[in-house]
């Protein structure tokens, strides 16, 4: 079993390491200890600026910095970065296509005990609708590091989605792992169904694949780290190969990865798509394993939904 590490930890580490090579500033809104930008603050105190608890201002400040030609990361919890400051992200950063990287941590239900006000299950949907915004949701710490590096290379706005909760660092065990922005990672081919997953759900998709194999079902697994622009080619190839799809995301089933996959297949190769995710509900307080169970974010649920998808095949 791979070591467990939260993607936010990897975000902080990546900022520190990449800060040596790349010239960028980092902003936070009084959450540096939690978002892990505090690691960067410690190493590069003159390149870090706390904006206090004022996320809207922070996003427009970031836009102003970027307008003068500097690359800048702006961090907060996903709820406040994508939610509270949506309009600033859209109008100050997205519309002029400025070089701001939004490092949003504590996304999804795995925030745990803080409950619904802090569990953002809508950020992918929100960020995805902004023209020109790149949206990345890494599956583990290895991918999170690569995602930060790739984001720096993009000349324009990028939304990076990180989690609070430790997740198995499975990509670290793959010597051939390579991150390519906008390219899905095919973890396995399958002729019966393909599980298309993002972020926290990718390692559970791998578990589900094994469980399905035991029942004689050949399931493929596709890791979509870049939700926008989505790798349409890989999604359609999966649809053609297996004829049925299950999507899995730690996000509302409306507007997130499930939505993006449906959009891609329905235009090119309509096949049944069954979505696993938060089923249009608010979160609640609780321990993460219990919440994952309660909201159906489990390998078992992916298996069940996979069978439903297969049963809908014509």
């Amino acid at each position, binding site marked *: 079993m791979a070591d467990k590490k939260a993607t936010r930890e990897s975000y902080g580490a990546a900022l520190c390491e990449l800060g040596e090579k790349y010239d960028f500033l980092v902003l936070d809104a009084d959450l540096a200890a939690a978002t892990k930008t505090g690691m960067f603050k410690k190493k590069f105190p*003159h390149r870090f600026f706390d904006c*206090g608890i004022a996320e*809207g*201002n922070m996003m427009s*400040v970031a836009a*102003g910095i970027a307008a003068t030609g500097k690359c800048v990361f702006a961090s907060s919890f996903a709820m406040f970065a994508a939610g509270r400051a949506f309009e*600033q992200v859209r*109008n100050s950063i997205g519309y002029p296509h400025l070089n701001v990287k939004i490092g949003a941590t504590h996304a999804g239900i795995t925030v745990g005990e803080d409950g619904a006000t802090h569990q953002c299950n809508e950020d992918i949907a929100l960020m995805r609708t902004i023209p020109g915004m790149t949206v990345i949701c890494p599956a583990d710490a290895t991918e999170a590091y690569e995602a930060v590096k790739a984001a720096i290379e993009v000349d324009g706005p990028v939304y990076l989605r990180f989690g609070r909760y430790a997740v198995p660092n499975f990509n670290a065990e793959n010597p051939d792992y390579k991150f390519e922005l906008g390219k899905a990672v095919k973890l396995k081919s399958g002729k019966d169904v393909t599980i298309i997953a993002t972020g926290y759900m990718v390692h559970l998709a791998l578990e589900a694949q094994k469980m399905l194999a035991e029942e004689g079902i050949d399931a493929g697994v596709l890791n979509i780290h870049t939700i926008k622009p989505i790798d349409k080619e890989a999604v359609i190839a999966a649809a053609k190969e297996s004829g049925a799809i299950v999507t899995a995301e730690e996000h509302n089933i409306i507007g997130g990865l499930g939505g993006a996959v449906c959009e891609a297949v329905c235009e090119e190769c309509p096949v049944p798509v069954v979505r696993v995710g938060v089923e249009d509900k608010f979160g609640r307080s609780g321990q993460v394993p219990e919440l994952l169970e309660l909201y159906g974010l489990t390998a078992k649920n992916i298996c069940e939904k996979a069978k439903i998808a297969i049963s809908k095949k014509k």
Partner: protein
Amino acid sequence: MEQSKKLELKRIANNVRLGIIEGVYNAACGHPGGSLSIADIMTYLYFEEMNIDPKNYKDPNRDRFVLSKGHTAPALYSVLAERGYFPKEDLKTLRKTNSRLQGHPDMKGIEGVDMTTGSLGLGFSAACGMALSAKVSSDSYRVYTVIGDGESEEGQVWEAAMFAAHYKLDNLVAVVDFNGLQIDGPVTEVMNPTPHDEKFRAFGWNVIKIDAHDFDQIEKAFAEAREVKGKPTCIIAHSVKGKGVSYMENSCEWHGQAPKEDLYKVAVEDLKKIGESLK
């Protein structure tokens, strides 16, 4: 200020006002009132105060301007045209489908526009970001922004005010265009944002109050701002909404509508008369 210089600035400002009317009339919509109220400030910034070069408008060392009250884009476009960033003829394309002169300032498409604005409060924060950026890399350029008095009802204005004072952005000047009127009525009746002087002072700013149409006072205020170290400067500029056009002055009605042909002619006549008196 020398009389000849003052007269010249007044002439330019009057031309800027004519350009505003030209743009808004041809667009058949837009925001003339708050554009006319800032014409003198905009003229002073682009013809006296700022270190800029229309031929080299992307110069990284240039002073920056952010029109936080972005709906008064006609004033910005008109002063940019007057200063030679693009032909004055272009003002007639304001808000048209194939024009780059968007209803609100667009930095990507328009020569000389330093920041995209329009949603109130956001530009002020962006100006803070620019000023911070200059500090980080020890660049000497200065940053100017104009916000509306109505705009100051936005909470983000005060987040930005806190930020600028906290980071001692003495390379930043924020002008509050205090024309006293917003869409729904007098600012003091809609949602009283006053007193701006006490508020900005309490937030840690250097505050100067001036008559927005008096070039002596404008010059003095910007000169003082350059001398103040360790804190940003807020210039509260008491202005007349619709300044220069008889029927638009001090009227909410002309916040966001264009004159039709008959009133367009009156506006042009009013401004031409002022122009004549400045010869």
